[in-house]
């Protein structure tokens, strides 16, 4: 802050605090590793979507060719082929796109629901707050992973949509709890009281006055949730309870390592996908950490 004041002071600007985007930009400039992660993530995600959209014929990708069974990495296949003679690179690209899309969908659904519940509970308090807090406590203590798996096996017509909904059913509670605690302290501030005195209705106070003040926390939470959701989706697909078999996912690629022979001898069929997941998780989490620091003035580096 001091630096900024001096600079603007010399130029005779009107002194105003830096906007949210400026703070985030400065934080990333200061932390080179976070900047690197951000650029890498943007390039990789864009690359995956463009490549999967333009360069890959799904039908051809999923065609089984026994002649190429476990073909070694080389000219025909950059990273070799799997048990069905299918190209690993193509499967990683399409799988990564599917995993990303699903994680984004889950993040958005749980984000919207969690923020809505959190805001309502934090602002109004009372019985509705009590009710939702009991529900959230319950969700947090039960073995979520097991129940998700049981749900998945029970659903009669299992599709990608059903998978997203089941995951969302269990994963909204963290966001709701965080937003609720922030909204609770925010709704006791003077500006909210003043607004109430002026007769502003509750809906406007919540959406136009409290929500913008929580936006930075929500962005951080959703970034970290996104990383978590990628992890849970790939994990479940790895166990065989994620995406339906016909849809390639990073997790299903890694799952071929469940066969000890594949794990040992045909490392190219699972290791690249595993390392790709690792890289994505590190990148997203690192960006999330930098955003978190930017959102809290005491932790900022820049």
């Amino acid at each position: 802050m001091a630096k900024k004041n001096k600079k603007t002071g010399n130029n005779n600007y009107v002194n105003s605090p830096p906007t949210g985007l400026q703070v985030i930009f400065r934080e990333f400039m200061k932390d080179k590793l976070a900047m690197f992660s951000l650029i890498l993530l943007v390039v990789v995600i864009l690359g995956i979507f463009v490549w999967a959209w333009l360069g890959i014929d799904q039908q051809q990708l999923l065609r089984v060719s026994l002649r190429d069974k476990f073909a070694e990495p080389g000219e025909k296949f950059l990273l070799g082929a799997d048990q069905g003679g299918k190209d690993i690179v193509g499967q990683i690209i399409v799988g990564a796109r599917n995993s990303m899309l699903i994680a984004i969908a889950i993040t958005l659904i749980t984000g919207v629901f969690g923020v809505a519940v959190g805001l309502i509970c934090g602002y109004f308090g009372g019985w509705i707050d009590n009710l939702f807090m009991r529900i959230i406590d319950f969700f947090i203590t039960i073995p979520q992973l097991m129940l998700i798996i049981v749900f998945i096996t029970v659903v009669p017509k299992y599709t990608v949509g059903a998978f997203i909904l089941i995951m969302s059913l269990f994963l909204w509670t963290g966001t709701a709890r965080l937003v609720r605690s922030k909204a609770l302290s925010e709704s006791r501030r003077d500006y909210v009281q003043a607004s109430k005195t002026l007769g502003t209705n509750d809906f406007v106070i919540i959406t136009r006055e409290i929500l913008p003040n929580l936006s930075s926390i929500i962005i951080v939470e959703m970034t970290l949730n996104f990383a978590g959701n990628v992890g849970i989706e790939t994990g479940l697909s790895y166990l065989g309870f994620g995406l339906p078999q016909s849809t390639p996912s990073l997790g299903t690629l890694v799952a071929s390592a469940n066969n000890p022979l594949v794990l040992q001898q045909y490392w190219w069929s699972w290791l690249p996908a595993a390392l790709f997941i690792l890289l994505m998780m590190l990148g997203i989490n690192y960006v999330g950490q930098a955003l978190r620091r930017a959102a809290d003035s005491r932790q900022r580096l820049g």
Partner: protein
Amino acid sequence: MWKTIVRRFLIMIPQLFVLSVIIFVLAKFMPGDPFTGLISPQTDPARIAELTEKAGLNDPWHIQYMRWIGNAFQGDLGLSYTYKRDVADLIGERALNTFWLSLLSVFILYLIAIPLGILAGRYQNSRLDKTIVLYSFVTYAIPTFVLGLIFLFLFGYKLEWFPTSGSVDIKYEAGTLRYYWDKFYHILLPSFTYAVLGTTGIIQYLRSEIIDAKTMDYVRTARSKGIPMRKVYSKHIFRNSLLPIAAFLGFTITGLLGGSIFVETIFGYPGMGQLFVSSISSRDYSVITALVMLFGFLALLGSLLSDIIMSIVDPRIRIE
């Protein structure tokens, strides 16, 4: 104090009740019926009707639920269709395996996390501290199954330091020293995987706790009495930071239970997590319902344990 514990215990009961109802309803929705394997297409329909009546499947659902819960309380969890054995016996055997695995995991976890947390806090902002913070970040971000597979590939198959699956080699006779050593040897790599993944929280907590403690009055007093800094760290600060760390134990247990599904599957370890995955695949419903119920109970117990330790350590959070 006791009031808090009793109060906290009473909250557990409705939670367990709701969980049991959810599991019961889910079990009813599961495809197939409990006689799969006992009957064939040649079986007389009258015989099937008789079996259904005898098993009480024609009763209203609340009566079926009461019977299920009643039996569960008496330790009768039904029969496993794939293993053709009593579910309680089957789980009991697997539970012991999971217990040893978890115990060693927790041990290694604290063995790694406590020194690293202390060092990071003591030499704050040094290169060592930055390395430890980076380490705890990486272990936080990495998914269980990715690390497990990489460890298995690297240490199990490539370097051949550890056995790659099972809980004990069959060539050793039960009860001998070699037998126990081999058991220990088998759980070493899985528990190390667990431990590495679980260290993040404890390292970060201990680090910030020690950084805070440095400026506390009691530390200054001890210093001014002439106690060397080394002793202040090992005696005064360490003891003060240790109790909150113990409170993490409950959360660690909850985390271990969730992670056991992945770790036991990857390392082919015959514990409860692996039993769950294989039962889902073979649609062995009586085992699934019993396991989910047990895991739910243990998770609730874990959070209860954490709350109790917390309220002993920090009187401010006791329920009034």
